[in-house]
Structure formats: C-alpha cells, structure tokens
C-alpha cells in the first residue's frame, strides 16, 4: 500500500464484517449494526481513508476509540452516532493535543468498525493496524497498554452529550473498572476513547496491516463462495492458517462468570480427524483448543471456528450442537507473544496456569 492508502467503499463492508467476525476468534461482538452505520455515512457522502502505519508522522497523535457496554444494549439502543467522537474530543482536550488519525484497539468483531465511523465523522484517516490483531474481552489487553502507555486521560461519552474524562488513573485496570461503571450509568452503551498516542509509539507497538488482512479474508470467503470452491482451503491458502480440526459439535456448555461468558465446546472428529475428539475452552473468545486431551492451540494464538460448508465464521454465542465445523489456527503477531504480552494475554492470565504457551508454527 502507498502512503496515501485507499478509501473505504461500500463494497468493502461485507468483506470487512466477515473478516472482522473471523478475527473475533469467537467473540468481539456482531459487526452488523456498525456495518449499517458506516454504509449510511458513506451513502451520505462521508469518506474514510485507510493509511499504512508507516504513513504516520512520529510526532503526530493517534486516537483510539471503541464501543463499551453490553452486547444486548448494542442491538436495542442503537448509537446516536457521535459518542466515540465526543469521547475522542474529551481526551484531546484533556491531553492538550489534536489527533490526526484513528486506530482500532481491537480488529476482531464490532470494534473494527467503530474507529472508521469516528474517522469518517472527524474527517481523519484510519490506521491499517490495531492493538490486538484479534478480539479480547478487556481494554488493557491491547499492545498499546501492554507496552506501557500511560492510561491517562481516558474518556467515555453517551448518546445525550455527557462526556466523562478520567484525568488521572493509576493504571489500565482502574480505568477499565471506572469506565465499566459509568458505561452502565450511561445505559450500558457508550463510546470510549483512550489517551492519544504519539505516531512513533503506534508504529512500534501496533499490530500492523490488520485492516487489510480483515478485508482480504472477507474477500476470499466471498470469492470462494461465488466460485463454489471450498472456503476453508481457500482461507488456508490465503492466510497461512492451519487446519487444526474438523468435526461435529457434540456439546456446548456456557455460563456467566464475572461478567464473561465462560464455557467449553466438545467436537467429534470427521474426515481426516475421524476418531479424534477436540475440546475448546471459551471465555467470550476461543482460548485453548485441546485435541485428544492435549493443547494444540493456545491463546493469544488465534483459534477460529467456521461452518464447514459455508465458511461462515461462528461466534461462541452461535456455536451449538450438531454444527459441522472447521477449526483454524493462526499464529498471533510477535508483539502479542513476548513475555510481557503473555503476562496479560497468555494462558495464565485466562486461568490456565498449568498450560505453558507453545506458539503455533
């Protein structure tokens, strides 16, 4: 990609939502509402340009925004539209800087699109990259915070015009805690902005090229379907993902624990995996894949379930008995696998201290 990047057009929206759903690794929320909102903005003449990381000036500031709240509220109290933009203005004012680009903290699921909406409203470009290269349940699980970004200031804004700025917070955990509480007061659907980051820092810690990766994945799925080709093998060829398991879901257990959806899915192997059985541990996203009792793919590496025939990404909410699925594994970016990152997003951080992280090759 050239430094000028490329504009997002309406035909990008379907690939974007498919690719974002897949990199959501089972979680990340449904991008449907966000996709409609972006389509409305584009049809009304707004534009948004995707620029590569290297196009950022070292001294320029980059804002990061996303939705915060409960998924069920997201489908009922649809956003006014400027929540994230107001939160962005809140952190800009508190930090005394102006942002010249926006970046997503989480490319998987619905928070891939929220930054584009804000960028379109603000007339800013959106950066081709993000802070996870996938989806995770909490804000501090992005490379931005793993590598030491001062979390102050942060801001949260509602549909009515209220903006709450967190001027000084001692770390991300407190910011997350305060923001979640205020999000509830705001009706459990609000816009969130984290502190503006210098371009030089973003270039160093962002997972690069993930927006184009998402678009490429979505286009491969659509193209394979149109040509009646096998979506799974096309995806493997295009992304370097590894087919970890093929099978039929024989059981799904889910419960709410500490605000997260925690559970497990059992899969009985078919085709080349006939005779084997697999189990996926879930916390909003797919965390660990066990085959015949042994862990073969471990968070933060990406574990992605797709419907065997259609290649439709399957979220942990729609996973159910009887589905024929393929489970693909994709190595997480190196930035997510350093000792420092693994403290925050490795198996131990998700309650699996006995499982050492062994990266997918």
């Amino acid at each position: 990609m050239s430094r000028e990047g490329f504009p997002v057009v309406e035909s990008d929206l379907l690939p974007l939502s498919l690719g974002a759903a897949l990199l959501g690794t089972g979680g990340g929320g449904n991008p449907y509402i966000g996709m409609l909102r972006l389509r409305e903005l584009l049809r009304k003449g707004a534009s948004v340009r995707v620029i590569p990381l290297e196009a950022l000036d070292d001294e320029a500031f980059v804002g990061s925004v996303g939705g915060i709240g409960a998924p069920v509220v997201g489908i009922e109290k649809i956003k006014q539209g400027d929540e994230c933009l107001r939160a962005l203005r809140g952190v800009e004012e508190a930090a005394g800087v102006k942002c010249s680009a926006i970046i997503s903290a989480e490319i998987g699921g619905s928070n891939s699109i929220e930054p584009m909406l804000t960028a379109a409203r603000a007339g800013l470009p959106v950066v081709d990259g993000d802070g996870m290269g996938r989806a995770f349940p909490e804000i501090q699980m992005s490379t931005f915070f793993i590598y030491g970004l001062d979390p102050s200031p942060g801001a949260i804004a509602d549909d009515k015009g209220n903006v709450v700025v967190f001027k000084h917070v001692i770390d991300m955990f407190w910011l997350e805690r305060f923001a979640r509480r205020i999000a509830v007061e705001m009706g459990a659907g609000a816009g969130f902005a984290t502190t503006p980051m210098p371009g030089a820092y973003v270039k160093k810690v962002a997972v690069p090229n993930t927006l184009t990766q998402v678009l490429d994945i979505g286009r491969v799925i659509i193209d394979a379907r149109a040509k009646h080709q096998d979506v799974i093998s096309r995806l493997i060829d295009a992304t370097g993902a590894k087919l970890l398991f093929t099978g039929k879901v024989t059981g799904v257990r889910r419960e709410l624990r500490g605000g997260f959806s925690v559970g497990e899915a059992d899969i009985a192997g078919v085709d080349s995996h006939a005779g084997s059985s697999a189990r996926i541990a879930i916390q909003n996203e797919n965390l660990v894949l066990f085959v015949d009792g042994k862990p073969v793919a471990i968070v933060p590496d990406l574990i992605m379930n797709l419907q065997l025939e259609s290649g439709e990404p399957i979220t942990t909410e729609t996973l159910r008995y009887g589905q024929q699925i393929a489970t693909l594994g994709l190595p997480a970016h190196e930035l997510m696998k350093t000792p420092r990152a693994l403290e925050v997003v490795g198996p131990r951080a998700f309650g699996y201290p006995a499982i050492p992280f062994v990266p997918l090759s």
Partner: protein
Amino acid sequence: MIRIGIDVGGTNTDAVVMDGAQVLAGVKAATTGDVMSGVVAALNAVLSAAGLEPRAIDVVMIGTTHFTNAVVQRRDLAQTAAVRLGLPATASLPPMVDWPDDLKAAIGGHYYMAHGGHEFDGREISALDERELLGIADDIRAKGVHAVAISSVFSPVNTGCETRARDILQKALPDAHFTLSSDIGRIGLLERENAAIMNACLSDLAKLVVNAFRHALDAAGIEARFFLTQNDGTLMDASYAERFPVLTFASGPTNSIRGAAFLSGVSDAIVVDIGGTTSDVGALHKGFPRPATVAVEVGGVRTNFRMPDVFSFGLGGGSLVVDGAKGVTVGPRSVGYKLVTEALVFGGETLTTTDIAVAAGRIELGDPAKVADLDKDLIARTEARIADMLEAGVERSRLSPDPLPVIVVGGGSILVGDKIGGLEVRKPNHYAVANAVGAAIAQVSGEIDRVYSLASMSRADAINDATEKATAVALSAGARAGSIEVVDVEDVPLAYLPGNATRVHVKVVGELDVA
C-alpha cells in the same frame, strides 16, 4: 368438536376434516390465482369426502401464505408511517435503513424519529414530547397516510412510551390504525421495528383477506367461527388477525411440524417435510416448533419475531440424479410438479430420486420396468447420497445427542428408509396433508420476552410476573381459562450488565374457547 384445517400454500391448498383427534378426510386442491376459489373448492371436496354437511362444522382453522407473498411480491401494501421514539439515541440508523429499496418505495418510506424511549433498566432516555408528536401527526395527515407503526427503544421492557405516543397520535389522527412494536417483537430494535412496519403496511390487506375467507366459508355453506394460524403454531381469531397479519409469516412450515407431531403422537422429535423440490427440517420441542434464535429475513427484511427454525435443502421426490466425475449428485435442480411426466417411471427422460426409490424397491409407482436396467451401483450410491443429505439436515436441527425420533411427512417421504443417521424414522398416516392437520389442531398462546432486574425482585417473582402477563395475552387471544399451561420458561443473565439484569421468556398455551 368437528374441525376443518386448511393450509393455503403456493402450489396446493390442503384441507382436512377432523373429529377430535381423528382425521375423517383429507384432500389436496390446486391453489388458484384468486386463492379464494381454491379454498372453496378444497372446502367442498373435503366435506364431500368426509360425508358431512357444512353445518356439522364447529370451527375452521386457516393457515395462509397471503401476507408473506404480499411482502415478497411488493403488492397490496399500504402507505405507512414509521414513528420511532428514542432520540437522541438511535439517530445514526433511521427506520427501514436495512430494507430493500423497492419495498421501502412500495410503502412510501415515511419515517420520523422523536424523543422518548427507555434505557435497559427502565429509566427514560428522554421525555416524550407531545408537541413534537403532534407535529409528526400533522405531517402524516398531510401525506394522507393512515397506517402507523410505533417503535420505542427497550419497549419490551417498558411499553409506556409506545402506548402514550399512540394515544397522542390517535387523537390527532382518528382514522389511522396503529401497530406497536412491543406487541410483536422482542429485543433488537431494528428487527422488531421492521416487523411492526410490515404489520402496519399489511393492515388494509388483512381486512380484505379476513373478509374474503369469511365469504369463502359462506360460499361453502359453513357458518362456523374461523381462525388463522400464527407462525408459532397457535391461533388468532379474525379480529386479532386483522390487527396482526405479520404473525402469519412462515406459518406453513410450522403447521407441517405440528401436524407431523400430532399424527405420530410424539412431542419431541425432528420433523422432515419432503416435497417435490426441497426438504424442510425443523425441531419439535414440547409439541411446538423450536423458534429461530437468529434474525429471519422476510422479503429481504430482517425480523426477529418467533419464526420456526427451519432448514431447507434441495432434496425432493423430483430432484435430479446426476452421476458425474465427482460422484453422484442429487438436486438442487428438480423436475418439480412435472414429475408425473418427466420421471423415467412415468415414461419421461429424466432420472429422478423417485426413479431410484422405485428401482430400489422402496415403492411401487409408475412402470418399474423402465428402471429395471439401472446400474445397481448407481442405485446404491444415490441412496447413500440421499441418506447423507437427510442425516446432515437432521443433525443440524438436533440440540443434543439424545436419540429423538424423526417424523417424515410430505409426498417425498418415499425416499426415506427406516433410519436416518441411526435415528428411528416414523411415517404417520395422512402424511401428505400434515400441514392442514397442523392448522386444524392449533392452540392459543401467549408469550412474553422482557428484561428484569433481579436486584429488586427474585428470579421466581420475575418468572411469575412474566407468566401472568403471558397468560393475560393468551386469554385475550381466545384461550379457555383453566386450560392454560406453561410450555416454555427461559431466563438468560445478560453479560456486562449490573443488577443481575436477566432476560425472561415465558410462553403459555391453552385450548381454544369455542363456546
């Protein structure tokens, strides 16, 4: 009680006469362009087959595709105003934003966004503004629109804004009729609002259709009361059907599933309805079709009201069998209603699944000599392929590894042996008219789906409250007091919400009160 059940489908209008649990007669008649003459023909035929006088009939239940077809074909739809309460929230996506342009144009595309609505916990988003609504009423009047759909954020939690807005608008627009989204759908603003708008645009047609059914019954000499079947397998009376035509969407597959259950006497099963071109598979749970959990599209519009979770695939009695380089393929192409002229056993040139069934000795049909020379290996491979397709369809509808019977209905049932994927297959009597039987046996239901905060009440109290509200709905829909039973209770804690916010869904059913 002598009942007639009618199912008006795209190709056939099926009718049965039932005395209690017994099927006295069942007929198939062609669906006609004007629909009603086909209904009269079916009524006359089934009465004569049962040897009954019209006055012997106590009640008539009708399942119809009229309203689905009106939306799919964009005809007979009223100009409609969509009024949404929720500002400043929701401004980013106006009503009908995800509709196909032609459907939106067919109903005028009129929409208004106003203040009002609630948060998930029942607080107001903003106060309802009477002057704002009166201004909207002026505009609706000036446009000459008299069908109005009102939606409000979190109206399944609190219906107050929708009812107050309706009262205000109704005073200013005395000739208009109103659909409230909270009467139709559940949480999910766009989908619930879509269903409400579709309902409003069908309201004029609903009056015409209900009247036409009344006339058809008159023409057949039947003076009995009549009901329409809803997509959850329950009934609504004529006046309710005039108000909520959208609830008939997809009642056809529902009636098939319910009829199959009744004829076979089981309440939990997988039902496969095999027609000429496609098979529909659905799950029967406690006597009712399991509803879809994801948005269902009708005429290109996403809705979220209680549609049966039906999976269709291209296997039927007329499906083409082709032996190619990659092995044998079955369907999705089909000779359809031309089976009786194009299949090999009927002297035609096309190898169909019916020919394979005859060649395999599953059934005697047409001239077996025409398929006597078919390659034995091809027959075996085709049968294996059909078995695989059926197993995949059935597996998709199972929610647990518990063994369930599979009930097979429809004309294509001849393709099925006595097992599908290890599950026992049942083919009940009268399988060809299972859909009309499903209409005839329909009950009356009431359903509630809302979010409760368990910080201020116990889980049991929340479920009791929902059950009382659902019972009230069933009684007002015509159920007999004392016959009501709870068929479904589901409570789901909501992620990332405080105060133990829990979504409670309760469904009750009762016998129809025909007194």
